[in-house]
Structure formats: C-alpha cells, structure tokens
C-alpha cells in the first residue's frame, strides 16, 4: 500500500492556541498501528485560511480536505479516512470556486522541504524541456505569447525584460529573484518561498537559460527566516540532483544560485537599490537608464524578476502559452496572488484570475465583512497604491483598471476597510511607512514626504487649515514627477487617492474638527451622559490626568482642556455612560 501523507496546518491565528496537533496525529497513528502507512507533514501554508485546523490527506483514492478539525476528531480521521479511505462529511472543507491556483499550485499540497514531492508534481520537467529541447529564443517567444507581466508591481512584460537582457552583449550576465517583499500586510512571496521554493528555483534557472546567465541570486529579506531556510535547503537538493550546477540534465547549460539577505530596507526592493545592496553598497536607487538589463549587477546585464513571476514560468512552459493566455483579461494574463487582509472574514493568500472583480474577492472569497459595519474601501498596492472606494467594487481587477482608479496592482497587498477606518489616518499610516523607508537620496521623497506627513499629522490633530489641502497636492505633484525611484514617485498615492475619493473626510477634520471614524484621538470628545451615569466614580478614579471631577450630588464632568483622550474612562465605565464623539 502506498504511504499516505497527512498535511496539517492550523489556520487559526488566535494566540492562545498551543495545541500540538502534530503530536496528536502521531499518537493516533501509533495507537492504530498506522505509523508506517502514513506520514504527518506540517506545512507553512495550505492555501486555506481562518478555517481552524486544516487537514489534507493524499495518497488515497481521493484527496480529502477537512477544516475546523478538533482534537476530538483526530482519532476518527485516522481510523476512518486514513485507514479506510472514508470521508467524514461534516468535516469536509468546501472551497470557493473563484480561486485559480497556478502560482500557489503546490503550496500546501507538497512538503516544501522534499524535492521528490515537487518532482512528483511535474517539477523540473519544464527545466528539462527547456535545456534539452528549446532554444533561449523559443523560451522567450513562449513567454511573449503567454502575456506574462512582472508581478512585482509595475507589470512590465517579462519576455521583454528577458529579451533585452538576452540581447545585451556581455560574457557575464545575471538573473536575480527579488524576494524583498516589504509592503505592510503583504506576504505573497513568503507564501510561495515557504510553500513551494522549488518552483521559484526552476523559474530562475529557466530565466538564466533564456537570457544566457550562468549565475542567479535570491535576494530575500532577512525577516523571512523560514523562507531563507527552505530556499537554502531546496537549492542544496537541486544541486544534489544535478538540477543546478554544471551540465544541468545532460545539457551544456551551467547555472549556480546564491542567496543574499536584505537587511530590512524597503527601498531595496527597487531593482537598482537591490543591486547596490548585493554589491555591498548602500542600498539606494541609481538613475535609470542604464537599465539593469543593460548594466546591472557588477555592471553586467541583469534580469530581476519577482518571486511570483518566476513561480509562473515552469507552468507556462509545460502547459503552453495558449493555455496561460486564455486566463485573465486582454492585457493582463494569468492569475494574481493577493494577500487579502483587513476587515474581511477570511483573510489570507488568494489567487484569482485577472479580471475578477474586487467584490468577488472580498465577498465570495473573503466571505464578506468581519463585522456588521459596511465596507468603505479596498486598499491595493501597499504603500505605493491607493484606496478604491466601494462604488468601484465591480471593477475587474487588472493592471490598467487599478491604475485608472488611482491605485496600482502592486505586488498584491489588498486591505479591506470599513466605516471604522479613517481615511486621513490610513493616508498617514502609508505615507509614514514610505517616509520611514525613504533612502534619503533625493529631495522630493526625503523632504517632500516628511512635509506631507507633518501636514497630515496637523490635520488629524485638528490643527489643519484648508490651504493645507493645496499644499498636500502641490508636494504630491513634485514627489510624483521629480522623485528618482518608484518609492518616492508613488509614496503620495495613498494621500492623493483618499483626497480624491474622501475629500469630505479631510474637510470634516479641518473645518468641523471631527473624525467620523473616531480614529483621530485628538478630535475625540469624551463626555458623561448624566442620565446613564450612576455616580460610581470609577471613571474619575481611573482618569490618569484627573480630568474628571464632581461629586455624587452634582454628578461627574470631564474637563476637555485637561482630558488627553486616552479612552480609559470609556473602557472602565460599566454603564455605557461615557459618550465618545
């Protein structure tokens, strides 16, 4: 009998869960004398989120996926499903049909630390086909037909980048996998590297073959230790099987891969800064042209591709360009992985065909809003992106449409916001991120961002003036037009797009000194509802600045001049007598 594999992943993120499901499964197998017949694998990503313990059993007649598995179910699963191949209907997971997993095809399906499992899923067949049957030109032609565009954010056609690098004349060329994912809330690359590192290695090797490079680098941020560990292991395994190194798969193609760790600077995801960082210099962007495809790492022609882009390559080669180009929209082919987070029920990585609407992603895949509050907007593209208000939820998602709405596809962050999110606060958060992460090289980004942030700070503290809005627009224009790299050029986007769609909120903050989402604490006013107040004095005792005075007869009052809007009184009042507005 073939050995069965039991993949487990606890998708419940609440902190108090410390159940050692792995040990429970091992025990259950042992008790049923099945420890030779099945193997338990803990995976980093199983492609299902917020569904409690997810268990996937493969190797039997049918693949079985269970969700919300409890400790008490484990023995049952082992007895019935592992031993007898029977399904337990009440535990069965029902997947949303809207997802289409190409990049994440293996994530959660295979043991990422075992190359055999990747190979069993057609792994490295594309590399084999490429090095033994296709010329580099044919590989590039295939990519051209597939319509694949860079998934790092800008959507530059991948074939074109490869072709430019291929045509640059030099004896030494490089390919780099950009895994310096840094957008707040985004973890698509991490998911792929931790869940299926071999697919990226294969993509990188094919890229090397296509452009004529014999050396590739992984540039991974050091904050992803598991990804780094798995990529390291995978590279070693690939070397051991002759899938990297000299004369790969009997061809005369040689290819080596090294890992370089990023030290935590967001700007090092920008390709010229990334190159500087690999070279051991200060990670700051340099002017383009020359583009890296002409003059990149160590001044040699270099193709830099994002993790997700590379994870697409092998499938395209194997299944063919026409299969791939049938997915998606006219100009944006294939699928896109999004890290869906925010006020949505099911947060996690989702992979959808291009052209799906935001509404489908949020409501069909994401399961709708987490509370009864209404959706307000979706933020895409991370700190370089913008907010898309709910009126545009039916827009099909692709590079062009998002740009038209003032946001960008970006690397795939997608944050759902509801009525409790203040748009001034959101703009301040994203801009603050870019101000922190600015390399400081050029004036518009270094000083412009800082000035905008100080203006936003004043607005959120009730110190804003109407002319500040012009000032924001003016600096934003200078940053967009005169910054050297994409970080500075796009940093004002969250401000510009919130100004465009939520001007009224800015107005409220400036003119009425009100934050309707109660996020900007300087604009909050706490008062005591005398009808509800029971004169228990708890608020007055707990107030850290003694802003609450009074006595049982006259009642208690908050002095707004002393109050620091900490919200302590609101939290401690048992009678809902503290009003916040």
């Amino acid at each position, binding site marked *: 009998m073939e050995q069965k594999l039991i993949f487990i992943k606890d998708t419940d993120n609440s902190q108090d869960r410390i159940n050692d499901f792995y040990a429970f499964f091992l025990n259950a197998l042992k008790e049923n004398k099945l420890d030779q017949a099945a193997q338990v694998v803990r995976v980093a990503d199983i492609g299902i989120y917020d569904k409690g313990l997810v268990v996937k059993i493969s190797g039997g007649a049918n693949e079985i996926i269970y969700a919300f598995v409890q400790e008490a179910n484990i023995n049952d699963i082992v007895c019935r499903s592992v031993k007898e191949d029977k399904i337990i209907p009440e535990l069965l997971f029902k997947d949303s049909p809207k997802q289409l997993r190409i990049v994440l095809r293996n994530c959660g399906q295979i043991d990422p630390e075992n190359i055999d499992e990747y190979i069993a899923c057609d792994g490295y067949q594309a590399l084999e086909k490429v090095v033994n049957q296709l010329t580099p030109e044919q590989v590039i032609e295939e990519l051209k037909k597939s319509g694949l565009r860079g998934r790092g954010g800008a959507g530059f056609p991948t074939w074109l980048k490869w072709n430019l690098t291929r045509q640059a004349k030099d004896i030494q060329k490089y390919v780099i996998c950009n895994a310096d994912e840094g957008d707040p809330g985004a973890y698509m690359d991490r998911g792929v590297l931790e869940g299926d590192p071999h697919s990226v290695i294969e993509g990188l090797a094919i890229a090397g073959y296509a452009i004529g490079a014999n050396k590739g680098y992984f540039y991974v941020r050091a904050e992803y230790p598991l990804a780094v560990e798995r990529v390291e292991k995978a590279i070693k395994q690939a070397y051991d099987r002759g899938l990297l190194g000299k004369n790969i798969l009997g061809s005369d193609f040689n290819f080596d891969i090294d890992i370089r760790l990023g030290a935590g600077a967001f700007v090092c995801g920008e390709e010229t800064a990334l190159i500087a960082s690999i070279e051991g210099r*200060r990670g*700051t962007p340099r002017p383009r042209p020359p583009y890296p495809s002409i003059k990149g790492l160590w001044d040699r022609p270099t193709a830099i591709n994002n993790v997700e882009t590379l994870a697409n390559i092998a499938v395209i080669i194997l299944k063919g360009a026409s299969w791939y180009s049938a997915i998606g929209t006219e100009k944006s082919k294939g699928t896109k992985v999004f890290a869906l987070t925010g006020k949505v029920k099911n947060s996690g990585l989702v992979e959808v065909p291009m052209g799906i609407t935001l509404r489908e992603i949020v409501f069909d895949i994401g399961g709708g809003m987490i509370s009864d509050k209404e959706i307000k907007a979706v933020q895409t593209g991370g700190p370089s992106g913008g907010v898309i208000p709910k009126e545009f939820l039916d827009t099909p998602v692709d590079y062009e449409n998002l740009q038209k709405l003032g946001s960008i596809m970006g690397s795939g962050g997608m944050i759902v916001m509801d009525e409790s999110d203040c748009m001034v606060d959101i703009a301040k958060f994203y801009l603050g991120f870019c101000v922190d*992460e600015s390399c400081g*090289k*050029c*004036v518009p980004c270094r000083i412009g961002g800082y000035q905008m942030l100080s203006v936003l700070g004043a607005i959120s503290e009730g110190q804003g003036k109407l002319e500040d809005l012009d000032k924001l627009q003016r600096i934003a224009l200078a940053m967009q*037009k005169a910054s050297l790299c994409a970080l500075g050029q796009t940093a004002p986007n969250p401000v510009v797009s919130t100004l465009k769609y939520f001007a009224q909120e800015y107005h409220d903050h400036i003119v009425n000194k009100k934050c309707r989402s109660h996020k900007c604490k300087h604009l909050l006013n706490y008062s005591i509802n005398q009808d509800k107040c029971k004169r228990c004095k708890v608020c007055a005792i707990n107030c850290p600045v003694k802003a609450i005075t009074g006595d049982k007869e006259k009642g208690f009052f908050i002095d707004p001049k002393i109050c620091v809007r900490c919200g302590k009184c609101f939290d401690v009042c048992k009678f809902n007598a503290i009003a916040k507005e």
Partner: protein
Amino acid sequence: MVRAKINNMPVTVDEGTSILDAAKQVQVKIPTLCKHPDLPPGAGCGLCIVKIKGSPKMLRACCTPLEENMDIITHDPEIVSVRRTVLELILSNHPNDCLQCGRNNNCELQSLVADFGIREESFQKFLPDCVKDDSTRTIVLDPQKCIRCGRCVKVCQEMQNVWALSFLERGFSTRISPAGDIKLADSPCIRCGQCSNHCPTGAIVELDETAKVWDALRNEDKYCVVQIAPAVRVAIGEAFGYPIGTNLTKKLYALLRRLGFKAVFDTNFGADVTIMEEGSEFIQRFAHGKGSLPLITSCCPGWVDFMEKFHPDMIDHFSSCKSPHEIVGVLSKTYYAQKKNIDPKKIYMVSIMPCTAKKNEIIRGEEMYASGSQDVDVALTTRELARMIKQAGIDFVNLPDEEPDQMLGDYTGAGVIFGATGGVMEAALRTAYYLLNGKNMDKLELNSIRGLDGVKVAEVPINGHKIRVAVAHGLNHVEYVLDQIRQAEKNGRELPYHFIEVMACLGGCVGGGGQPYGVTDELRLKRAAGIYQDDQGKEKRCSHENPFVQQLYREFLGKPLGEKSEHLLHTHYRALPVYVK
C-alpha cells in the same frame, strides 16, 4: 552623433551626452544642485527635470542621455512649478542664515532661490539637530547647511578614493558624516578640501583663519611676512572679474604690502630650492644607487597624508624634501632673519595657498618647527585671501604692479609650474638633466606630462640613460601607478618608473581644494595655461639658474643635501592609522 530637439531648437551632440549638457548647446540652463561637471550624475536634487513632448512623465536631465529624435521641453509652467516646489522643500530643511554664511554671495542654492524669485517660505522649517565638525582645524562640516546632494561623498570616495565621508542613516535623517559617526579628524580625511570646493552650499567650508592674520598684522611686535603659492596667482582674479587664468603675481605683491606685510616672498622661490634638493636626491638614488627608486614627490600634503595612511609601504620612496612653502617658511625665520638682523621669534609667516591641507601640514610634525618655532604660522587659502582683500577695502583691479622682496622672492619658470600637474616633474627633470649632463635640455617643455590625463608617463633620455617618469593627479589615479611598482618589485622585474609625481587634486594645485569655487576641467586648463605662460615669459626657466638660490647655497646652506639643508629642508614620514580610534 545624436540629433534631437530641445525647446524646438535642433541640437546635435555626441552619443551619451546628457540632456543637461546638450541643452547648453542651445543656451538653455537647466537648474541643478547636485550635478557637477567633475562628477557622475547623482540624481539627488530633483531640480533638473524635463519632459519629452507629449509625455506627462518627467526625466532627470543630468542622467538621461539625449536620444535620436527626442523632443525635449526644459521649461513649461508645470516643470517650473515642480522645480519651485522642490527648491522650497530644500529651503524648508536649510537654515536662513545666509548673511553670516561662508558662502554668502557665492552659494549655488542662494543664487537659484534668487533666480526663482522665492520670497516666502511655504513649508514648515525642520532643521536637523546636529553640530558643526571643525575637528580637523582645516575644513568645517556644518550638517545643518547640507542639502544632501552627495557631491562631497562622490568627491571623497570616487575622485579621491579617501572614503572619509559617507551617507549615514536614511530618509529624513540622512546626513553626511564619516562612517561610524566619528569626527572628521579621526577619519581617513586627508584635508584635501575637494569636498569644500564642490559643495554647492556652505555645508563644507575651509576653516577661516583670516582673523588670526588680521590680529598678527595689527600686532606691532610681529614682523609679518607672506608668500604666495604658484597656483594662487592665476586663480585669485576670478574673485574680481578677471578672465580665468589671468596671472596677477605683481598685483598680489602690491596688495600684500598694502595689507601690511613687511616682506612679500614667493613660494616659487621655495619651489626652486625644492628642485635643488629633490633633483639632487633623485641623482643620488638614480646615479649613485643611494636610496630606493622610484623617487616619489612629496610636496603635496594631501598626498603625503594619503600615503602615510593608505600606502605606508611607499615611505622609503618618498622624497624627504619639504614642500616649497615650508622651505620659504623656515628660510624666512633663519636665513632671512639672520641677513636682516630680525629676531626670528618676531617673524610671523603667512602662506597663501590654493590648498586646505596646507593648514594641516604646517603642524604635521616636529620638522615643521626646524627654525626653532613654527616655520609657517598660518596657511590661508586663495578664497580666504579674496575675502581679506574685500574686507581691507582695496581696489584690487586698479593696483599697480610691484616686485617681491629680495632673497626669498625671485623665481624661475621651473618654480611657477609647480602649480600645475606635471610641473614638479618637469622642473625636476630640467635640473636633473643639467646635473647629469652639465648643460640644459634643448627643449625645456615636456608636453607629454602636461594636461589632464589622470596618469601621464614619459621617457626622458638623459646622458645615455632613459628616465621613465609617471605623473598622477586626483588620488583615484594613484593606486594604478603604485600597484605597477609593487608588482614589479614583487616579481623582480625592472621598475616601470624612476620618478613619480603625485598631486592629490585633479589638475594639481590649480585645482586645489582652497581655490575659488566652480572648478571644471576647462577652468583647470585655463589656470594651468596662465602658469605655463608665466614660465614661457621667464628669462631663467631652470631652478639651478636662480641667482638667489645660488646665493642661498653659497652664503647659508652650503650644498644640496648638505648638513644644514638636511636639518632645515627635509622631513620624515611615518605610517598613520587610517582611523584614529
């Protein structure tokens, strides 16, 4: 050749010419604060943005090469308004103390702000909280005035290969400082002052010591004497509207007397003495095998400092002869004092130098006190002298010509060419030829070692020998020459050179760190031309022909390399740590 249009005017430029440079062809000035003709584009300021007709994007003119058929617009309302915003952003991060600044009336930022007609401050002022660094007592770093254009970092790292200055921190906190946030005096800084010469604002200036000199001049107990370096005479005129390269030697003599100096000497006289000593040193090593070859010149204090820190293995190759102004300094307090019967303690020697490193040289070791007290009391730069002239209310342009004071004032053509790269070598060879052959060369000019090539080599036949010489200027060119020597020594091959001249600054002293601002190659060549013209017009053009030098040896020193010369005119070198702490 590339043919394109700028502001609808046709331009034809060499391939690779930047839009910024191409625009000059059609008399269009594109503003920039970070691009300097000496340096590769830094793309830091964001002011040089231009548009391609029909595209909303803006490009940086400094680093975008003009391409065939490009249709460039350099000025339109949007471009100008973005530039204005960027400029105002710079101002929001820059103190408003122009009136007290060392660069007042001579500041690139100030004149640009004036050009743009900026009359008010739109943005809130945020000044970095950092202190001045005057630890070198040579150049003063004022981070508050720094606009982070990065010129000084490029100069220090790429042009001079010193790596004392770098960018620290990132984003709004980015600043210029030695690595590790140490003081400049503890860093590898060699005090060449090229940073101060390239700084567009007052963030790096020479330490102003004019007050010291004014005090000395007003002190009746002091007998103030002065000397001017070769390169000063062809540069000082730039501060008074003269054409670049005008030789103002005789006006300077008159001026210095008006300022109150009791005797006016010329460093060129010291240069003639240097040649007698160094020429003899070369003959000793070359013809008599005493000491190691190649002999390397040591009259540039920046180079000496650089060698002591980075190449101490070359100490044996160094000429032990002091630099010309130190020779005039020690002779003024010994020989001159004796002849004139003046108490040497009363003599106060001021050197007017094109150089900031001279401020450091005058106290570099005990040999600089050979006369019994400090041989040169103050070294002023050309820039400081220009300020003194203006302060004194002297109508410099209309001054009559005067002659220098005798004994330490007259010079030959060989003495003056010390101011240009290759000049020391040329002067030394003129005298070496005479010493070996008993007659002067037929043709005194050695054109192959003139000009601005980074490394210049020549082979000079003297008396059956072939003397191979190399001339390097700009410290990034030195390594190549030194490595050639090391390779030859290591492999026991014949030495590539017998005699090497090194000047720390590009162009030699005419391009010194203490010279008037705005240095370019064109300007270096014009200043050098002024110097070579002076040489050409001299009746005596070889140091050994200087009657006052002959008299000096006859009456006082004895012979070159004699006991008295060794004591007064020679020095020692020692290895210095690159970082003090």
